């Protein structure tokens, strides 16, 4: 019997895209800066998207309001950073607060909005889109309609210089945090019984129930964790942009949907590779051909779906 090897082709594609960009950009220092920026952007998108892909994989729930948790995370970060003094020491409690708030909101949202429409895709799209609109208006009421600044703590401003190469400190931090979250998520999914249940549930939720596990409880847990991660991602994205608007979540949703479709719905590894591809391509194309930058990710999605219609890492459902 032939052992199934982990599919490395998407990672090879990622490396090829990165090296191909080096050949086109030609200036190594620019290439390094763009690559770090692309990785940071990709990993922040991964943090925001990972929960959504599992939610879809586990329960076939199409949550168009996922951006709500991103927006709430960003706005809570604005308030928390002000409250805690805006220093580096304030960052950890502020990010924790954003995760708690977004997670709590996720719990309420699942109970009130999602639960009544399980298994009804059209209603899910309508009600979650409606929920997103209502939530945006509530954010207007609570935080006002104006763009709010979200300055980074002083030690995360500026860049580190390595010869000709300038790397923004915040981007480097975002890369480290993103990798840490991916590793933690991969370990949870592959080394714990909870992770096994989530992976099994994505494949065949009926069989998981027939083995005595309550898939809905599992789903609520994943939904809350995914919302908390979206909140964290929103806070970090707000700091990345150094400003927050009420549309931050809705704007990110386009990229998030591209990422989870590219990756394969329900696949965390696919989401990771897809997010990195989207981040890198956006930065490289933005530098090389700014006029086509806007459509570059759509083009990337089209190319990948023509090659692998189920995404980079299709999840076999039975």
């Amino acid at each position: 019997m032939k052992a199934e090897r982990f599919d490395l082709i998407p990672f090879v594609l990622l490396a090829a895209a990165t090296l191909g960009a080096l050949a086109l950009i030609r200036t190594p220092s620019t290439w390094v800066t763009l690559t770090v920026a692309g990785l940071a952007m990709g990993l922040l998108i991964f943090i925001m998207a990972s929960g959504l892909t599992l939610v879809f994989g586990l329960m076939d729930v199409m949550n168009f309001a996922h951006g709500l948790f991103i927006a709430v995370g960003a706005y809570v970060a604005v308030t928390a950073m002000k409250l805690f003094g805006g220093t580096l020491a304030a960052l950890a409690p502020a990010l924790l607060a954003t995760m708690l708030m977004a997670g709590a909101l996720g719990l309420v949202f699942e109970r009130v909005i999602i639960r009544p429409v399980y298994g009804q895709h059209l209603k899910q799209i309508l009600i979650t889109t409606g929920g997103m609109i209502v939530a945006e208006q509530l954010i207007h009421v609570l935080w006002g309609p104006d763009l709010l600044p979200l300055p980074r703590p002083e030690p995360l401003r500026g860049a580190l210089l390595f010869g000709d190469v300038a790397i923004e400190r915040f981007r480097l931090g975002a890369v480290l945090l993103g990798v840490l979250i991916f590793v933690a998520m991969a370990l949870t999914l592959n080394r714990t019984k909870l992770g096994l249940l989530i992976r099994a549930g994505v494949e065949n939720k009926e069989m998981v129930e027939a083995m005595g596990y309550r898939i809905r409880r599992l789903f609520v847990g994943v939904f809350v964790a995914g919302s908390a991660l979206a909140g964290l991602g929103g806070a970090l994205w707000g700091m990345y942009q150094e400003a927050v608007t009420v549309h931050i979540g809705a704007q990110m949703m386009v990229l998030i949907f591209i990422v989870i479709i590219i990756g394969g719905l329900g696949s965390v590894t696919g989401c990771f590779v897809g997010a990195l591809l989207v981040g890198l391509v956006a930065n490289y194309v933005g530098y090389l051909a700014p006029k086509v930058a806007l459509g570059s990710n759509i083009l990337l999605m089209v190319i990948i779906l023509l090659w692998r219609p189920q995404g980079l890492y299709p999840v076999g459902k039975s």
Partner: protein
Amino acid sequence: MPSDLLKLEGVHTRIGQYHILHGVDFAVPRGELTMLLGRNGAGKTTTLRTIMGLWRASAGRIELEGRDIAQLDTPAVAGLGIGYVPEAMGIFAGLTVRENLLLAARNGPLDAARLEWIFRYFEALKKFWHLPAGNLSGGQKQMLAISRAIVEPRKLVLVDEPTKGLAPSIINNLIAAFAELKKTGTTILMVEQNFHVARSLGDSVAVMDSGRIVHAGRMAQLAADQALQNRLLGLSLEAQQ
């Protein structure tokens, strides 16, 4: 005569606009292997799924040790000690053989002695322990599906057409494994189209037609009565002989 572990009384099941089970009545004696036979579309799979709570009975009683479980949800039914092997096997293809069995062990870590007992009949599982289950052959997948249902002692195991599409050598292996499982006192309700398998393993039998039980009794009696077989099982039996 052993007491009944499972008893169905007047069970009706509707799936959407379709009325599939029309008052199913039969009992599964404790410690025996009961065969549920019948033509395609008779309602055998629906009966197993209704017992598991995967489709809810619209009327009637399903009693496990005297307790009505008809309105329990699937995890609660499974939690009562019922193992289930669906017709499509339901293995998790992306998980390894080990991980599939690990999930099936609800009450703690895998029991090494029980695993060794399973490996005696299903050697392939030991060999491919760390391989994704999606890589296994059809017969090996069936072995895994059955092993998952019995990786811990269960009161009742529901098995839906375990020999479907398998090679004769693997079928013989399965027969030996179920015969051994019977010796442990496990109660089994098995849907089967292969009359040779049914005759080899069954202690009691219930035959379904059009969503109803049309015969219930001892397997030996049905196996000895050619006319009864022809009347109850008709073409599906002829195809097997």
